[in-house]
């Protein structure tokens, strides 16, 4: 581990209804959700007040402190982040499945996925802002398993961060537990690149 580590816990998770409907299998945008599904969605959403425990942990390090994987090439700094919504929602999904409440399980699982994504989006915004404060250009966020960054690079991320502080661990097959967790990197560049975001860096 290297570089100071920061933790964020004060997330306010809001939901994109349409995305949730897509996640639970509604392909058509115009589909009218009928009973009993409609009530099930409302009831499962209510559980989120006590089932969600969103948190993220991150560090920002210089290129030399990374494992110098080709995906970090030309980056002045690299932000590494792990986000989660905790284990409780997954436990509830498991219990529902055991009780033959598969539709509720499906809905709650989708709500959990959306919540984890929302925590990642908000963490990403915070890190992009950090880049700008450093007069650097932030790239988009990338997770292991996408493009040239193999899923096994999860191990590098977990070497860089004390993930246990937010209750996340990595399995041998590079899966995160809780499953509703997201890990990613953002490269900070000195100059604007095709992969950087459009905003200009803050002028000091």
């Amino acid at each position, binding site marked *: 581990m290297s570089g100071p580590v920061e933790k964020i816990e004060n997330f306010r998770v809001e939901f994109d209804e349409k995305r949730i409907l897509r996640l639970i299998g509604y392909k058509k945008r115009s589909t009218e959700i009928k009973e009993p599904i409609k009530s099930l969605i409302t009831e499962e959403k209510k559980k989120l007040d006590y089932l969600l425990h969103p948190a993220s942990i991150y560090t920002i390090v210089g290129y030399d402190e990374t494992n110098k994987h080709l995906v970090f090439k030309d980056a002045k700094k690299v932000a590494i982040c792990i986000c989660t919504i905790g284990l409780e929602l997954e436990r509830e999904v498991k219990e529902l*499945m055991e009780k033959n409440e*598969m539709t509720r399980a*499906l809905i709650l699982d989708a709500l959990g996925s959306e919540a984890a994504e929302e925590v990642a989006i908000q963490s990403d915004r915070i890190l992009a802002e950090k880049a700008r404060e450093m007069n650097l250009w932030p790239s988009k966020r990338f997770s292991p398993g996408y493009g040239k960054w193999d899923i096994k690079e999860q191990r590098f991320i977990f070497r860089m961060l004390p993930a246990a502080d937010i209750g996340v661990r990595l399995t041998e*097959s590079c899966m995160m537990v809780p499953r509703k967790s997201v890990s990613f990197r953002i490269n900070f560049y000195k100059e604007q690149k095709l992969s950087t975001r459009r905003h200009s860096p803050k002028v000091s």
Partner: protein
Amino acid sequence: MDKEEILKRMGKAIVEGNKDEAEALANEAIKQRLDLNEVIDKGYVPGIEKVGDLWEKGEYFLPELMTSAECMKGAMRVLQPELEKAQISAKSKGKVVIGTVEGDIHDIGKNLVASMLAANGFQVIDLGADVKLEKFVEKAEAEKADFICLSALLTTTMLGQKKVIEILKEKNLAGRYKVLVGGAPVNQKWADDIGANGYGENAMVAVKITKKLIGE
């Protein structure tokens, strides 16, 4: 309520996802000493088949399918002890051993497939998630299964699907079981490359393929 009315309402309960009604009608059938296999075949099964048709037409989506599968399971739970008491086995379209492969703890997709297969008349033996690869073969052998369904949600764990097929070949069991694969990183090409008999893109497709493989 006469038999015809009970059978009609059973199908309707499944289509509408009315679990209480589906279970109450199962109890009514027991009370009236109806032929329980007929109750399943002419009452509930037409309902779950209609649900499949509605899904094909794009009128039903995954949540509706699951609600109907829950109803079917609920009704079967009521009927099963009575069938056992009478030493009648519920008709089965085939025996399926299903699980998520070793190293992978994702199970919701696998559970959806298991529920839909059970609702459509297959006998499902669910091994759970993170299942040792040899166990799929051992269980299929012990249970004289017809199908082995392998779920994997990661590119690192989908290789387990290939290994199970290799284990079957090593044990000279290739061809004895139909192997179906599924999961987010899996596709038809992967299924073809590793020699699987089918790829279930989603729970309903998995049911369709399984039925096709038994000649339905």
